[in-house]
């Protein structure tokens, strides 16, 4: 007998806010579940890998001989010795790479932000930097092989590796330096020009110091990344079980190369000498990378322009 109810009564008896249909609610809930799940799917392998590296590699790390000896005097299935030769090689090759790649990358970033702006050359340059960041490490290694070893006839060495790493490090340095330089407000540049400071001095003494903390962060991250590159090591230098301080001559060990060599020549059974060495080296590499990231965070905080 709805006809006897007035319109207002009828409207008042219905709920004021329509409920969202169950179908829509269900879809929403499903989406939420899937999205949370995908995050966990990302975290799981990370945790698993780190757990594996730590648990398998921890056995030999706490002993000083691991950090101060090499494998020169030890047989491949003999316990003992250490990875000092590999640590030295990794550090030398990567530092030499940084010495070349950082100034070069900085200059490119300065060109893009301060001089080139939107010009044609700047557009081409920024495009090529993007392309360079997509060049596989093996291709970079082959290029250096073709240039350094075949064409110039120079021997394989840690330095050749450094050159290949330069190709891989430059794009990362350019991108992060560029971002940091762009963040520096134009206000500061204008204030400097208004004082009669030439452009190059403005860049060196005002812009760069203001961006420095972020640039240092970016450089350290790039460094940590090239430390783990293996492909150039296979093509451009040989493995040595002895410490070799000479970056320019003879075979030189490095952590990834050591891992690869052990994998190819030794048993991987859990508990075997090869197993301990390879995971120990992996953990060593992870520790060094983590240390670099830590130093980067600390240094960039120290250098950052202070507010108080």
């Amino acid at each position, binding site marked *: 007998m709805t006809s006897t109810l007035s319109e207002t009564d009828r409207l008042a008896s219905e709920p004021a806010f329509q409920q*969202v249909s169950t179908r*829509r609610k269900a*879809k*929403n809930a499903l*989406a*939420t579940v*899937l*999205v949370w799940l*995908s*995050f966990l*799917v*990302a*975290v799981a*392998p*990370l945790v*698993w*890998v780190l757990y594996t*590296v730590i648990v398998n590699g921890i056995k030999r790390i706490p002993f000083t001989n691991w950090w101060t000896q090499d494998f020169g005097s030890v047989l491949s299935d003999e316990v003992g010795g250490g990875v000092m030769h590999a640590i030295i090689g990794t550090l030398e090759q990567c530092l030499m790479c940084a010495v070349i790649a950082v100034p*070069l990358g900085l*200059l*490119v970033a*300065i*060109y*893009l932000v301060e*001089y080139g702006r939107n010009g044609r*050359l700047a557009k*081409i*340059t*920024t495009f*090529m930097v*993007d*392309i*360079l960041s*997509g*060049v*596989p*490490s*093996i*291709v*970079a290694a*082959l290029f250096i092989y*073709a*240039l350094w070893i075949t064409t110039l006839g120079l021997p394989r060495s840690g330095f050749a590796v450094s050159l290949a790493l330069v190709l891989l490090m430059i794009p990362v340095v*350019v991108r992060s330096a560029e*971002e940091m330089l762009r963040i520096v407000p134009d206000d500061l540049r204008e204030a400097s020009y208004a004082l009669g400071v*030439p452009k*190059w001095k403005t*860049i060196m003494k005002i812009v760069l110091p203001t961006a420095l903390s972020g640039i240092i962060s970016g450089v350290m991250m790039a460094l*940590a990344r090239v430390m*783990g*590159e*293996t*492909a150039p090591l296979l093509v451009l230098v040989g493995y040595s079980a002895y410490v070799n301080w000479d970056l320019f001559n003879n075979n030189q060990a490095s952590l*990834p190369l050591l891992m690869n060599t052990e994998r190819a020549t030794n048993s*991987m059974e859990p508990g075997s000498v090869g197993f301990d060495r*390879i995971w120990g080296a*992996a953990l060593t*590499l*992870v520790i060094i990378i983590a240390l670099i*990231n830590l130093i980067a965070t600390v240094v960039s905080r120290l250098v950052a322009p202070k507010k108080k």
Partner: protein
Amino acid sequence: MRPGDRIFKNLSTGAGIFVVTLIALIGIFLLVQAIPALGANGVNFLTSRIWETSDPAHLRFGILDLLLVTIYTSLVALVIAMPISLGIALFLTNYAPRRLARPFAYIVDLLAAVPSIIFGLWGILVLAPQLAPVSQWLNSTLGFIPIFSTGNVFPNYAGTIFTAGVVLAVMLLPIITSLSREVFERTPTAHIEGALALGATRWEVIRTTVLPFGKAGYVGASMLGLGRALGETIALAVILYIPRGRTFDWSVFDGGATFASQIAANYAEFNNPTSAGAYIAAGLVLFVLTFAVNFAARSIIGERKAD
């Protein structure tokens, strides 16, 4: 112009020009080194599946198998990584509690910091044994579907394209996620608020505003991931098992070699220019391939944002 300004300007412009010529130089040097080997090749470079380069006097090398395995492995990795990355990117931009979004993003980025050789070792020594029963089950129950048919490295279920694809997918997650995240974050608030004002659920808001806006960026990010996958070297060299005598046959349980892993695995043959030239030729193809993929990806993503 003051001398200091001129020097500095030329120096930085020169650095920019250097980077541009570098790419050209890479192509040129690889080509020059590859030509003698290509000339001495006993079989067709593009269509043959044979690879015999140990004897420089009798070179026979063809990249067909390498090309197929490279693309196939990358596709498997992409198929796995793309939906997960989409979920993670949406999670970080729209679902995670505000305060936790940054630390969570940092965790995902940590995946990119793990060296690929460690991923390779973990893949073959730890993941593969866990994955093997899954592979076996798929092979036996769904083996009539070509991609799940018995592989060319049977009974080895560890060093397969499947295992490699899963590990590679994990390595691609941070790349695809980070760029997609940036794009999703830039969805105009006006669009989002418009959808909310219509009473849309959170998923509906995303479906109607974030996803359409971020589609190009997500696709571009995935293509960059593809480029990375195509070039991954050591992880695949460690994981993939080389089949004896049999060739790639479209099963995910096949083993094989990609351009990168083939070159890396045979570094010992770089003792003479002719054999090395064969590998350099393969590297050249990889260079062109990744160049093209990166070019396409950047075009889709569009102009660099900070301008």
